């Protein structure tokens, strides 16, 4: 998680019309990344020990007709590249991800029944990160001393707690000891969903939150020390206005980036949190499919998560370039 935040986002192209070139380059990279990652997910079937057909059935014995259907569906007699082409065009054009052997229904149906929970969980977590992460980061950046120190201490502590440990601690305190919130399951209706997703969303947000707080604080503080801010202050512009117009507006660029990157990293992590709270989302389905060797589901959900991650990352990069044209032109963003 921290690793993603540490990534340097600097572009290499350095000519005029840098913006268009940057966007073009980034889009090409995006397509290449999508092709390569989908190919890796597809080819993993062949890398598995044993014959692909037995991997697809997960060692279950199926009637010959079903085996023949699988062989036909995955074009197992064709060369690898042909099979990949058939598979990926099926996915892109028809949303056809194959059939789940354990659930006995199309993978697309397995995903569409469960994606809502995952989306709600990630959205809730993202909201927590934006409101509390950025809010407390700005506060720590503006107020030195006790407030700053305590915010940093708390966020350092949170950064060290993996999501599944956070889940256990939250469960044992708020669900079991105090009984304030329900422990497991999805819940129904608006308030039911909020109630059931609060602890999972906090567990998912905890470590990402710390990264956002730290980056926000450092950015706000370094903006505060810049000359134009000091000039504005010396000209007698009220502190509120200086902070809003000069500090926060400039600080918003790196903060947007780090928030974007941390939120994209939540997609993959949600599997752990869903499993811990037995939420019925796609992450939990991925884990159960991996345990039961339901390979079509594993491929389908992996593809979806990787695609979401790659596209979101590209959007963050592009947004960064739009907000701060220096990135595209190639000079280092100060």
């Amino acid at each position, binding site marked *: 998680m921290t690793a993603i935040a540490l990534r340097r986002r600097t572009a290499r192209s350095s000519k005029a019309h840098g913006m268009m070139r940057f966007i073009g380059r980034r889009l090409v990279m995006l397509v290449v990344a999508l092709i390569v990652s989908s190919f890796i997910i597809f080819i993993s079937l062949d890398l598995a020990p044993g014959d692909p057909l037995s991997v697809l059935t997960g060692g279950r014995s199926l009637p010959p007709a079903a085996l023949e259907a699988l062989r036909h569906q995955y074009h197992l007699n064709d060369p690898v590249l042909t099979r990949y082409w058939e598979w990926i065009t099926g996915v892109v054009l028809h949303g056809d991800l194959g059939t789940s052997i354990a659930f006995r229904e199309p993978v697309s149906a397995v995903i569409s029944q469960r994606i809502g929970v995952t989306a709600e969980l990630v959205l809730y977590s993202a909201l927590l990160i934006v409101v509390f992460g950025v809010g407390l980061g700005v506060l720590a950046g503006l107020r030195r001393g006790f407030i700053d120190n305590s915010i940093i201490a708390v966020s350092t502590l949170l950064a060290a707690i993996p999501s*599944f440990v956070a889940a256990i601690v939250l469960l044992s305190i708020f669900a079991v000891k105090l009984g304030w919130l329900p422990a497991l399951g999805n819940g129904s209706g608006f308030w039911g969903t909020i109630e059931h997703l609060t602890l999972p969303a906090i567990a998912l947000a905890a470590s990402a939150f710390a990264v956002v707080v730290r980056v926000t604080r450092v950015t706000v503080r370094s903006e505060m020390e810049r000359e134009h801010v000091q000039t504005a202050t010396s000209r007698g512009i009220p502190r509120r206005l200086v902070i809003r117009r000069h500090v926060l507006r400039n600080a918003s660029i790196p903060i947007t980036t780090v928030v974007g990157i941390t939120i994209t990293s939540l997609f*993959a992590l949600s599997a752990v949190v869903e499993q811990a709270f037995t939420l019925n989302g796609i992450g939990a389905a991925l884990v159960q499919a991996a345990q039961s060797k339901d*390979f079509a589901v594993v491929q389908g959900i992996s593809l979806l998560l*990787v695609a979401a991650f790659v596209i979101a990352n590209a959007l963050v990069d592009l947004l960064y370039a739009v907000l701060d044209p220096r990135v595209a032109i190639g000079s280092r963003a100060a």
Partner: protein
Amino acid sequence: MSTVTLGRSIIFPRTRRRLAASSVLYGVCWLIVGVAVFLAIFGPLLAPHDPNSSQLEFQFVGPFQAKGYPLGFDSQGRDLLSRLMVGARTSMLGPALVVLMSMALGTLISVLAAWRGGWVDSVLGTGMDILFAFPGILLAVLTAAVFGAGLAAPTIALAIAYTPYIARVLRSAAVRERARDYIAAAEVQGLSSLTICGRHLIPNLAELVVAQATLVFAWAMVDLAAISFLGLGVQAPTADWGVMVATGETGVLQGYPMESLSAGICIVLVVVAVNLLGERIAARDEGRA
């Protein structure tokens, strides 16, 4: 603070206090890491009881309630202290292997890219950019699904997933280092590329490599424990910290959080200690450069 120590301590009292506090802190970090490594090697020999023998009559008996069982028992009446001591081995071994593999791979790729430059550099750079597309934990789940649950597949998957992060940091350092005079001097003397890289370039990157290795260890520890927590890594009856957090969840729901919490605390302590030590090494490296 006091009048006796006029002179230096009046000038930088805060800095001095910080230094003193930090050396205690880092001492504690070294201690934690040392104990964890010691347990990873000798834990199974030193464990007071069999970590897998269950005495159902002691189910959920708390700490210090039975003589010789200071941490009490888990849901199946197994000795928690013994399970934690034995579990140190798999919990530490996995991350160590990830570090070895990803550091070797990352160093090789970054030095090759920096040394050759040109198209080799841009091909390797693009390859690394694409690898970023895979969140480590997702790649680990995928490989566990393909190759079967266990420690081996997720370990290799994480090593591959972390390589781009390492290669990116090391590459820029290697490029900087390559531009230095001593490399040019060595080239003029007619030393082979392999000798210069092996004898001069890589040793000069060593400190950065160590700093990166500690960070990778901490990430790998969290991610591998998560994989074991999900039931895709180390398998259930085996004592492992990630597994214990998962198997302890039933206890948590019944109001006996000891198993999950103690294993979780072990993970958090080691991760924090390793992280702090790594940050310190990185800071020292920056101070020198």
